[in-house]
């Protein structure tokens, strides 16, 4: 996957398949301090010490038949890019995955279309709440489906009226922080 934002989707999907009902995503890019930080934290079923050890193995997965390449790739990437990669997890409590990279590293994939990544995930996550906190060079933007659902009640986030609003809302916030549009 050639964009970091696609890896973010992948990490969010991992959290969803762990049965989380809340996922907190923090993304920070800083040009001057030259780093990228991505944290995905969930309240899913979590993993015990044995399972965490297995996560590094590309042939290990709890999902049916699939080979999990996401985590080993990110771990390798963090080594190539003078960063680090950690997974903290507790059975029954949740998992926190953190990736830290040197932003100018030539092996680091570009962040990619982070705006649309946030929009599509926010609009299509039916049974789970999501919070995104995106910070770029000191300016930040936050969106939280718990807040949105509190206002919307039973109306789905993929209702056309809601979609129009969310798209414009995210667009405007991104413009303000000077993120990629």
């Amino acid at each position, binding site marked *: 996957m050639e964009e970091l934002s696609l890896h973010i989707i992948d990490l969010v*999907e991992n959290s969803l398949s762990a049965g989380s009902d809340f996922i907190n995503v923090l993304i920070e890019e800083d040009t001057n301090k030259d780093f990228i930080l991505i944290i995905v934290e969930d309240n899913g079923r979590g993993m015990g010490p044995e399972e965490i050890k297995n996560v590094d193995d590309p042939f290990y997965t709890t*999902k049916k038949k699939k080979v999990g390449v996401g985590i080993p790739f990110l771990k390798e990437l963090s080594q190539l890019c003078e960063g680090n990669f950690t997974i903290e997890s507790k059975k029954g409590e949740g998992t926190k995955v953190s990736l830290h990279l040197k932003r100018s590293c030539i092996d680091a994939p570009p962040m990619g279309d982070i705006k649309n990544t946030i929009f*599509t995930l926010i609009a*299509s996550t039916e049974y789970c709440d999501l919070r995104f906190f995106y910070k770029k060079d000191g300016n930040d933007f936050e969106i939280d489906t718990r807040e949105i659902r509190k*206002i919307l009640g039973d109306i789905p986030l993929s209702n056309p009226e809601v979609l*129009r609003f969310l798209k414009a*809302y995210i667009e405007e916030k991104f413009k303000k922080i000077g993120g990629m549009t």
Partner: protein
Amino acid sequence: MKLEELRQIREKVEKQMRLREGQARIKIIVGMGTSGIAAGAREVLKTFLEEVEKRNLTEVIVTQTGEKGLSSKEPIVIVKEQEKPDIVYGSVTPDIAKRIVAEHIVNGNPVSDYVIEIGA
């Protein structure tokens, strides 16, 4: 813009929903496992959301799921409609997503070329 503006949208949508007495009639589920994402599922998901918005499809819910175990045919899209069997599409691109909305969701004719499974 403020999230509070959603309150007016809620009132408007609730009024519309009362008129039709309906909830969502059709669910479009996009497979977003690792291989699905690598094969372009994000763009497909985005296209569905855009089409729902453009065509004002108030009876459709767009959502996503993890791996479905058919990685050679990712991105996978499942269309669930009340009282009808689930239709599973494979190798969906944004263009095919547009056809699924126009032909299947709006006109009721599944895009048979890309159907890979008909479920219960």
